[in-house]
């Protein structure tokens, strides 16, 4: 058993929170530069230029790229031969979120209860933690803060097998049209196909949080990612919904085995501030 201190988990999460919220991943910047070069709409080009300028300012001033620094979503791959010492795993993650969001001047956007008081928890905890037990003795943590502008436009549809690929495409397009400018395009679109209700949603989230430039390992689904992106960019929505071709810079698909009677489809949209950070302990 390899020992990993809970304090090290806390410190890593705190660091990732600030990093993810203030520094746009280089691959995303590259996509925005590419979009700026290819965008036929003058307004669209100007917006893409300003988004790149915004990313530079955020990084140099260590100010969040977007004021909505989101709920903190943490994907944790915990090696089965790792042993956490000196504290509780989820508490350590939440302590890191609290520290990162407080000391890093990030916005606290979490309310303790959804319907009655909606009182702010004041440190952006609790994080939403997805833990998997995996082979090995390491812990991999991936933090993907997610703002509500794009999250609120998420969609789940329980299609049936007869709906097929055409049905899936319609779900995606309807979601994109409904999102329009509200989800701060250019977007990264995460599409989860298969599984059951909750798995489809989680797949869509994982897809939206994937590094841009990565592709589904199954060539059929990789081809589908290209097809979806092309379809989305024919919508005319464009940067900020003011018209153009760069409605999305990437479409990511994740899939899973499903029931003989089901074809679940979930769409989770990420805005252009497609933020995440990853660390291995």
């Amino acid at each position, binding site marked *: 058993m390899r020992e990993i201190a809970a304090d090290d988990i806390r410190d890593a999460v705190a660091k990732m929170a600030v990093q993810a919220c203030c520094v746009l991943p280089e691959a995303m910047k590259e996509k925005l530069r590419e979009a700026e070069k290819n965008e036929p709409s003058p307004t669209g080009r100007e917006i893409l230029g*300003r*988004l790149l300028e915004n990313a530079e300012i955020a990084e140099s*001033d260590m100010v969040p790229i*977007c004021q909505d620094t989101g709920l903190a979503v943490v994907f944790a791959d915990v090696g089965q031969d790792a042993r956490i010492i000196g504290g509780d795993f989820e508490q350590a993650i939440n302590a890191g979120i609290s520290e990162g969001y407080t000391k890093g*001047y990030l916005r*606290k956007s979490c309310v303790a209860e959804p319907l009655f008081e909606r009182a702010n928890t004041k440190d952006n905890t609790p994080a939403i933690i997805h833990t998997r037990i995996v082979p090995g003795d390491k812990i991999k943590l991936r933090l993907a803060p997610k703002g509500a502008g794009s999250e609120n436009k998420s969609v789940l549809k329980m299609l049936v097998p007869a709906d097929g690929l055409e049905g899936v495409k319609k779900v995606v397009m309807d979601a994109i049209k409904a999102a329009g400018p509200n989800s701060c395009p250019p977007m990264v679109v995460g599409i989860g196909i298969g599984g059951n209700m909750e798995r489809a949603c989680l797949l869509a989230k994982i897809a939206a949080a994937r590094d841009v430039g990565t592709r589904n390992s199954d060539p059929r689904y990789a081809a589908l990612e290209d097809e979806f992106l092309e379809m989305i960019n024919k919508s005319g929505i464009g940067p900020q919904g003011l018209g153009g071709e760069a409605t999305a810079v990437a479409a990511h698909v994740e899939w899973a085995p499903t029931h003989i009677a089901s074809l679940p489809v979930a769409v989770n949209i990420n805005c252009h501030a497609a933020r995440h950070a990853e660390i291995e302990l």
Partner: protein
Amino acid sequence: MSGQIRLKAPLDPETAKNLKAGQSVLISGKILAARDAAHKRMVEALDRGEKLPTDLTGQIVYYVGPSPARPGKAVGSAGPTTSGRMDAYAPRLMKEGLKGMIGKGYRNSAVIEAMKENGVPYFAAIGGAGALIARKIKKYTVLAWPELGPEALAEMEVEDFPAIVVIDSQGNNYYETGQAPYRRSE
């Protein structure tokens, strides 16, 4: 977005009414900052027949909940939030003299009707460009409900705040006319 028009806030009614969808503007002066919770409280106060913490005549409201300011700065990151969530409250505030709204995203038909009735334009700021926009905000003063944190009602002093008229007081909608030329699917 070329040919920028300079606007002074608060807005005079004639200027507000004559702005056209698609025009790019730079706003300087004093604007209000409010989002969900502050809107709810303003409308509740009006429903009880109470006075608002500030006079809305000619005011532009910016839908924003900034991240905390680092020492020496007025605000942290301060981009627009989704306007649609304020649709339930906006017509009531226009009746009180509100002359402009800044946010991002679509508005419902009740809001657009109220904009036409009251001569109010709706501006879009660049969503997710909070760090860039923060540089245009020189001062941030909480006017009411500090317990709401980033959702408090505040006044902002802005200089050359960039925005685009997306729906004008005649109901012309640049989200529709801007997208149409690039649409290649039904």
